[in-house]
């Protein structure tokens, strides 16, 4: 199954990137947050890959970040400090949360790369002026990349890049569309792996992978069962597929998600316009927002509720990295909103390693709550 290939990319992400580098002779750039205009990087012939968690508890970050910052940011930094990403030629971050920005700052200071860039991604995406600000920033960023590489990024290259990215988004969305069925043809853990592998690989190649997945899914025999509890997972960065597998082993299927390692990443496409950079920037301003950028009104919740309805979910697991301030703001009102709409939810706080043993009673009790009949 091609799905296994996606899992393989996620598991052996460093091998993938190293091989890609060898094969193409080009550069690789690590990015820290999904609010970066990847298309520009890709158009420059550089492979953008997302730096995600390794789920190994490490003490390397202690001198650099202390315990009040989210485990994801610490996990990310630990890998940088340990040289796991020594093949990266550049790193970049978009303005999102302070936690990750601090990891980025420490990485930049302690792990030299030939290019490092902190881009301001506006937070008040609900303001029309954000698009102008974004344009100014993408323009500067493009210049910086051109300077770094010593060659211009042409409009033609941008068009191709946008096309490749849009195709990837479209294909992922098609696969997500299939998850509305009961039973869906794939597990939630597998869907997340598809998104993660997209963040970790060359999108042109990944598009082929997605196409074969789309071909294979209808014939699949060993997928989820019908009648399983339909769950949605919502929250912060979540690449812990082991945990998802555990939940799906208990008679539930995750049919939808709202994570930046899931649907938030690819949900909308770039709408082409003559000014390519504007088109690219607008896409990020219009995407399903991260909580830090969701004000004054709460558009994120509208998106979540729509999804909940369309995917016919019975319950939601709200996942949050411990100490993740952005999500700590949204979870209480979101939980209340879900409840008001008859959707029970379970809140779990993730650490670098997820102690399944500690969550066992909670998860099981939650599934019982959704399922167990009292005569």
């Amino acid at each position, binding site marked *: 199954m091609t799905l296994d290939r996606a899992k393989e990319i996620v598991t052996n992400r460093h091998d993938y990137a190293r091989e890609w580098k060898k094969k193409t002779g080009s550069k690789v750039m690590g990015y820290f947050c999904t609010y970066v205009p990847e298309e520009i990087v890709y158009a420059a012939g550089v492979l953008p890959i997302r730096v995600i968690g390794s789920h190994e*508890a490490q*003490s390397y970050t*202690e001198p650099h970040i*202390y315990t009040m910052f989210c485990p994801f940011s610490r996990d990310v930094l630990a890998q940088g400090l340990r040289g796991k990403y020594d093949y990266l030629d550049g790193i970049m971050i978009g303005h999102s949360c302070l936690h990750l920005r601090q990891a980025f700052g420490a990485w930049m200071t302690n792990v030299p790369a030939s290019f490092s860039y902190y881009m301001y991604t506006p937070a008040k995406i609900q303001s029309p002026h954000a698009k102008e600000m974004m344009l100014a920033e993408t323009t500067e960023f493009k210049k910086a990349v051109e300077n770094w590489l010593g060659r211009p990024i042409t409009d033609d290259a941008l068009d191709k890049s946008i096309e490749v990215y849009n195709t990837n988004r479209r294909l992922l969305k098609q696969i997500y569309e299939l998850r509305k069925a009961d039973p869906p043809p794939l597990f939630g853990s597998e869907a997340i792996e598809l998104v993660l592998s997209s963040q970790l690989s060359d999108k042109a190649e990944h598009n082929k992978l997605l196409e074969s997945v789309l071909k294979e899914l209808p014939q699949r025999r060993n997928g989820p069962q019908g009648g399983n509890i339909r769950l949605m997972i919502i929250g912060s960065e979540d690449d812990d597929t082991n945990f998802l597998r555990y939940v799906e082993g208990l008679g539930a299927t995750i049919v939808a998600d709202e994570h930046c390692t899931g649907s938030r990443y690819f949900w909308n496409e770039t709408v082409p316009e003559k000014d390519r950079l504007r088109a690219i920037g607008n896409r990020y301003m219009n995407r399903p927002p991260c909580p830090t950028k969701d004000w004054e009104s709460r558009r994120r919740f509208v998106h979540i509720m729509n999804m909940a309805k369309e995917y016919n979910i019975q319950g939601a697991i709200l996942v949050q990295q411990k100490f993740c301030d952005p999500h700590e703001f949204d979870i209480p009102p979101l939980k209340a909103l879900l409840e008001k709409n008859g959707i029970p939810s379970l809140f779990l706080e993730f*650490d670098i*390693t997820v*102690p399944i*043993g*500690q969550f066992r009673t909670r998860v099981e009790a939650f599934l019982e709550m959704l399922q167990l009949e009292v005569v």
Partner: protein
Amino acid sequence: MITAGIDVGSKTVKVVILQDGKILARSLVLTGFEQGKAAEEAFALALKQAGLSAKDIQKVVATGAGRTSVSFATESVSDVAADARGAVFINPNARTVIDVGAEEGRGISTDTRGKVIDFAVNERCAAGAGTFTEAMSRAIEVKLEDMGELSLKSTQEIPLNAQCAVFAESEVVSLVHAKTSKEDIARAIHDGISNRIAAMARRVGVQNDIVLIGGVARNKGFVASLKRQLEADIKIPDEPEYVGALGAAVIAAS
């Protein structure tokens, strides 16, 4: 000059009598409920061993969590100061001192004279000290003294969240039922606690030589885990639990 150092720990009281840089006697008794009495008892024991009487001792310095309860002490110093001085006294190259006792773990960075540059202490939580291993050894029904040896025979690494000693205990019990070997569980326990200790040590900056002291230094399994975590060699003095008391005696002499 003859001096004495008394380290009143939460579990044990240790006394060292020192004459011109040479250790004359050592003693150890359980702290129990009355710290002051235990201190007197330990002091008397050490004096007897050294063949001295109390008035032969020119200065007594107390340290440890219960240092204020030593009525006959001339002075008291913090446990981090005593640890650093003691460690540097034994090993002049010591720059990072890690002290893991029954209820507290500490990471200390020191200068060449045994003066504390920085230190970190685990918050009042059993997950980062000797008590953790004690509780776990009970859970898997292995004698505390055997835990180290056992874990060295482990063949696989299992992540254990040493977040809370109580919850970790139930995780350990589940591991037992999942037929995980006791060797592997023992290692997971040591990995869990050493992870927290390593974090503390890194906080103050790890520099060679690293000297591990306190009762838990006797646990070979823990030492092996900590070495793996820190990716460095760790020096352990012969009598690791006496280093704090020794440091106090050294301070008394200066």
